Structure formats: C-alpha cells, structure tokens
C-alpha cells in the first residue's frame, strides 16, 4: 500500500512536470502539443473506492491549468474521463464485473490497450479544445485539433505504457 502511494505520488509529479516543462513546447508541425499527462488516468490502479482517484485527477488537471494559464479546461476534461474510465474499461473488455485487486492494464492485449486509451484520449481532447475555443463557429478547428493531437498523444502514451511495463 505504502509502495503504491509513493508510486502514485512520483507519477503525479513526474507527469505534471513532463507536461508543463517539455510537452507543452514540442510544437509538432508548428502547433501540436500532445497531452500525455492523462496517462495518469490510464495507469491509476482500478479500485472499488474511487473518490480519491477522482479528487487526485482533478488536482492534476488544475495544476496543469495553473502552469498553462488555461482556466479550468484541463481540470474539467480529466475529471470527466476519470469518472467514465471504469464504464469504458468494462465496455472494452466486454465484462460486467472486474477482479478489482488483481486488475492491471499492462496485462491486456495491445489491441485492447490501444482501444481503451484512444476512446479516453479522444473524449478528453475534444472537451479541452471545445472549451478552449468556446464557440460553434470554430467547429472544424476543434475537430482537426482533436484528431491531430489525439494521434500523437495515443502514440506517445502507448509507447510509454508498454516500454515501462517490463521493468519488474
């Protein structure tokens, strides 16, 4: 348990600084900045008590907002996908119940991991860009930004998750 708490704390701070100090400045093709900090939502252990997870996700989002001056956009989006993580995971696995203690994302097949993180990433990015542009007339911009940024976020998150999986 203690080990888990330390693990989560390191991941929280690591992802926060990775996002605000490096990934916010990579500017692929001039303007695409992948939002890899949502790996937090993918990797947080699945437990029955979920309130702490929701609060921590909100805190991570609002910390990102503090650094990037984006209001509460990231906090809103990450809390949203944190809440819907479990239903989506169930849908991807086509199960109605999970073995909470034993479950580990890294034991899934690659297809299912990609499907799971893609759904969450696209929802998250769509919310972020909709709230950032805040207008219907920019709908095409919102969609194109969502799609392009999602591609890079999914690639980097998937590589990150699989590369760090075989460490133990």
């Amino acid at each position: 348990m203690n080990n888990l708490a330390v693990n989560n704390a390191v991941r929280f701070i690591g992802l926060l600084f990775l996002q605000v100090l490096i990934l916010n400045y990579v500017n692929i093709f001039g303007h695409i900045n992948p939002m890899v900090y949502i790996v937090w939502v993918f990797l947080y252990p699945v437990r029955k008590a979920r309130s702490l997870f929701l609060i921590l996700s909100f805190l991570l989002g609002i910390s990102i907002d503090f650094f990037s001056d984006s209001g509460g956009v990231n906090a809103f989006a990450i809390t949203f996908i944190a809440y819907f993580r479990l239903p989506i995971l169930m849908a991807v696995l086509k199960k109605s119940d999970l073995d909470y203690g034993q479950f580990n994302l890294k034991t899934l097949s690659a297809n299912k991991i990609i499907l799971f993180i893609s759904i969450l990433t696209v929802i998250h990015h769509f919310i972020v860009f909709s709230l950032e542009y805040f207008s219907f007339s920019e709908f095409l911009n919102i969609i194109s930004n969502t799609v392009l940024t999602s591609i890079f976020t999914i690639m980097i998150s998937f590589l990150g998750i699989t590369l760090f999986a075989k460490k133990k």
Partner: protein
Amino acid sequence: MRQIIYFIKKFRYFLLFIVLEILAFIVIVQDHSYHQSKFVNSANAITGGVYNKVNSVSAFFHLKKDNQLLSEENARLKNLLEARANKFVLDSFTVIDTSQYFQKYDYSTAKIINNNFTKRNNFLTINKGTKHGLTPDLGVINSKGIIGVIKNVSSNYASVLSILNTNSKINVRLKNSNHFGTLVWDGKDYNITQIIDIPRQAVVKTGDTIITGGKSAIFPEGIAVGVVKDFKYEQNKYQIINIVLFNDMSAIGEVQIVKNLHKDEQIILEQSVVNE
C-alpha cells in the same frame, strides 16, 4: 432525513464528480470574462518559481541573439539622438523650462519566463510583479513591437495577455493615414494577426506599416506592430486585413513594460464625459 443521508451515501461518487466539474466550470467561465481577475493563472509563487528556474538555464542559449538585439536597438536610438541634436544646433542659448518637460510614459525591463503561442488563448509569464511596481493593464513591448497587456500580478511575477489571444483587442492605425482599427487574432498562424473595424475610406496597400494608435490608455502611439500582408475588400468594406508581425512571437526574451503615468487622469476625464 435518513433518506437524504442514504441518497448522499448512495450517490456520493456521482455527487463528487458533479461538484468537481462545477468547480472547474466556474474557473473556466471566470477565465473567459476578461475584466474579472482570475484565480488560476501562472503568476503565482510556485508556477512562477518553476518557470524562473527553468528559464535561467534556457536563457543562456539565447544570449548571443539577445545581445545582437540590444546592439541593434542601441544603434537605432543613437541615430534618433543624432537626428535630434542636429535640429537644435542652431540655438544660440538654452533655456531650461521645466514646465515644458513632462514624462508621460515610464519604461522598465522584464524577462519572459514562459511563452505560449500555439494555443487559441495564449498567455506569457514575466519575472516582475507588484514588488517592482507592476499593476494589471500595463503594456508589454520589446524593441521590435508590441507583445501584450499585463493581466494578473503576484508579488514577484505577472501573467501577460498575449496579442495572440481571443480577448486581446488593441487599438492600431495605419502609419501613413491616421485611420484607426482594432488588432485581433484568428488563432491560425502565430506570425499573422488581423485588423478589423478599419473604415472603408482608408486606403490600404500591401506592405503598409501598422503602428499602435495611441487611442488606448495603455500603449504610447507609434509602437511598431507589423506590415499588411494581404487584404480582401468586398461589399464596400474591408473584410480581412492580414498583418505580418515584426516580432517573432515564438522567440521573445527581454521585454519592456510601459506604464502610462497619465492613465488615471485620462480615464477619469473620459468617464466624466460619458456620465454627463
């Protein structure tokens, strides 16, 4: 009562979710209304401190370019001084009449420690705050042109509303004809901004220089902005005027803060006219 407690217990996870989302939404709405000072911004001790530390390393790599910019500006200012000296060289005596001198603008320097230019609404963070006399609504410029307006200040840091932001509306004019317009940004290319509200009588040509108008109480008149890239004149008015900025907004470091010492006087006067 028991039922309420049961209800809260049963749906507490969902209720927590709703509370957090409402919190986030309040922050978003506050952020979108410009005149309300917002709580979530990068001008606080923690984020400012982190950006400052990181910047102290990365600034080292720009030293050469910064020096070059400084010497270019020095040369330009020296040229201005020379031009001025020649004008008065025929004066046979000097009278120092202090009532003729007044300082309207006060300049101080600061450094950008966090720069955004790829989002729809961009903010910068600078390393000066209330301790150095900064307040909200001061102009930020550098040697090549305008950069933005200060939005939030903490004791040591300030966040700047970049001209690359939906909420940024700056009064500008054509250098050669005194026609005023408003500088806005459509969010596409960080080197290109737009001008709206230019009267249709104005004659705009590709390559015309755009400078600040001096109608606002923030920027002095005549600070360079950019040149006209192209424009569309339809239905008897200017639909789009694209401006190429002099500044490369992706690479700015040292900036100057402009404080208008007559701002209060001007605003009070303007308000008293409106009230009558």
